[in-house]
C-alpha cells in the first residue's frame, strides 16, 4: 500500500468516526448547530435597524448580511469544536491508541479535518434553511453559493488545523478556551455588524488587516450575487491554511514525542 493510500485509509476511518460520533451524540452536534442559529437570530433580528444607518449599503438586506457572517463563524467554530473532540480523545486515551495503530499519522489530522467539514455542511444547511424560512434574500447564483460553501469549508479546515495544533500539544479539555478565544476575537475584530467603512476607532484599523475581513466581504459578495475580493480571500485562505497546517504538524510531533 502506497503512502498516499495509507494516509487516505487512516483519514477516512478517523473522519467516519468523527462524523458518526457527531451525528449520534446530540451533546456534540447541538452546540455547533444552536450557536450559529442563535447568532443569526440575535443579530439579524435584533440589530436589523443598523441597515438604516447612513452609508450602509447592502441591497440584499441585513439578514443576508448576517447570514454571510454566520457561515464563516459556524465553519470556524465547527473547527474549534472538533479541536475539543481531539483533546477529549487524548484525555480518554483513545488518541494515543490511534497514534499507535495508524500507519501514517498525518491521516489522523486530515480525518479530523474532514469530519469538521462534514459537520460544517450540515450546520450551514440548517442555517440556510432557517434564513430562507425567515424570508432572507439570496441574490447570488447557485455558483456563488457553491463558492460560499467552498469558502466556508476552507475556513472550517483552517480552524480545525489551528485547534488540532493546540489540542495535540496540550492534550487536555482544559485547553478549550485557548482554542476558542483567539478565533472568537479574530472573528469579532472583523466587520461583523456593519461594512468595514462604517466601523469606528481602532477596531477599523485592526479589521483592515484582519484576514477574516476579506473572508466576510467575499462571503457577503457571494450572498448578494456580487463576488468581491476573490483573489485576496483566496490568498488569505491559502496562507492561513499553510500556517495552521504547519502548526498542526508541530502538534502531531509533540503528541508523538509525548507517547
Amino acid at each position, binding site marked *: 500500500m502506497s503512502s498516499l493510500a495509507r494516509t487516505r485509509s487512516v483519514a477516512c476511518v478517523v473522519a467516519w468516526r468523527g462524523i458518526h460520533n457527531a451525528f449520534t451524540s446530540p451533546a456534540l452536534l447541538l*452546540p455547533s448547530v*444552536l*450557536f450559529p442559529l*442563535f447568532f443569526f*437570530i*440575535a443579530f*439579524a*433580528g*435584533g*440589530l*436589523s*435597524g*443598523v441597515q*438604516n*444607518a*447612513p*452609508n*450602509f449599503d447592502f441591497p440584499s438586506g441585513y439578514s443576508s448580511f448576517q447570514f454571510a457572517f454566520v457561515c464563516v463563524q459556524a465553519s470556524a467554530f465547527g473547527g474549534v469544536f472538533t479541536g475539543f473532540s481531539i483533546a477529549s480523545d487524548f484525555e480518554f486515551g483513545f488518541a494515543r491508541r490511534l497514534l499507535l495503530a495508524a500507519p501514517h499519522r498525518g491521516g489522523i489530522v486530515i480525518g479530523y479535518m474532514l469530519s469538521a467539514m462534514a459537520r460544517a455542511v450540515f450546520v450551514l444547511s440548517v442555517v440556510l434553511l432557517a434564513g430562507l424560512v425567515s424570508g432572507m434574500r439570496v441574490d447570488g447564483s447557485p455558483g456563488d453559493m457553491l463558492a460560499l460553501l467552498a469558502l466556508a469549508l476552507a475556513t472550517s479546515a483552517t480552524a480545525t488545523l489551528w485547534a488540532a495544533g493546540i489540542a495535540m500539544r496540550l492534550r487536555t479539555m482544559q485547553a478549550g*478556551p485557548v482554542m476558542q478565544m483567539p478565533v472568537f*476575537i479574530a472573528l*469579532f*475584530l472583523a*466587520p*461583523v*455588524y*456593519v461594512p468595514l467603512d*462604517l*466601523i*469606528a*476607532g*481602532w*477596531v*477599523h484599523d485592526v479589521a483592515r488587516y484582519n484576514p477574516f475581513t476579506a473572508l466576510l466581504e467575499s462571503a457577503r459578495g457571494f450572498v448578494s450575487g456580487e463576488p468581491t475580493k476573490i483573489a485576496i480571500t483566496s490568498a488569505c485562505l491559502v496562507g492561513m491554511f499553510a500556517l495552521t497546517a504547519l502548526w498542526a504538524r508541530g502538534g502531531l510531533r509533540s503528541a508523538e514525542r509525548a507517547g
Partner: protein
Amino acid sequence: MTAAALASGGTFDQVGLLAGRAVRRVIRQPAQIVFPIAFPLVLLAVNASGLDAATKLPGFPSADYLDFALAVPFMQGALFAALNGGQDLARDIQGGFLDRLALTPISGAALLAGQLGGALFMGVVSAVLYLLVGLALGVGIAAGVAGALVLLVLAVCISFAFACFGMLVALRAGTGEAVQGFFPLFFVLLFLSSAFFPRDLIEQDWFAAVATYNPVSYMVEGLRSLVITGWDGEALAYAFAISAIAVVCFLVLSSRALRTRLTRT
C-alpha cells in the same frame, strides 16, 4: 474552617466563615477573575466600534455607542459570577463538602448566604472595574456621582440575582456540567434583550416582543438609564423590582432545593 468554629458562632459568624471561604476560593483561581472581567471588556470595545454607526439613526438615545453599551459588561459580569458561583457550589456538592457541612449545626440560611459570598465579591469587583474603565474611556454618567453609586448598587443586585439562579441550578442538579449547560441560556437571555439595540428601534416585531417580555431588557435599561438619561424613576424601579423578585424567588427555591438535597443525603 472547623466544625467547632461553625458551631460556636451565630448565624452571622457562620455566614462570614463560609463567605470568606467562597471569596478566598475565587481569589485563588485567577481564571475565575481574569476571564469574567476581561471578556466583557473586549466585547464592549469591539461592539462600541462595530455598532457606532447605529448612533446616526434617528431616535438613537446616545451620541456614542460606548455610552449605550456600557450597561452590557455589568450584565455579562453578573452572568459569569453566577456561572462560577454555581460551579463552586456544585463542586462542593460533588466533593462531599456540603454533606460534611450538613453534619455541623450550621443553619440553612447561613449556608446559602455564605455560598453566595464568592459570587457577590466578584459582582462588586467587576462592577467597580467596569465603571472605572467606562469613566477612563470617556463615558459620562448622566445621573452624576450619586447615579454612579446607584449604578454600582443595581449592578451588584443584578449579580446577586443571577448568583441565586446559579446556586439554584447547582443545588438542583448537583453537577458542574449542569451549571455549565445553563450558561448558553444566560447568553440567549442577554442577546434576545435590548442590550445591544434600543427596543423602539428594533425592526423585527417578533424580536421586539421577545425583548419586551425578557426581564433582562429591564435590568439593562435600568443600568443604562443612569448613564445616558439621568434619573429615570420608571427604568430604575423596573430594574430594582425585577432583581428583587428574582432574588426572592431563587432564594426560596434554593432553600427548598437545599432541604431536599440534605434530606437525600
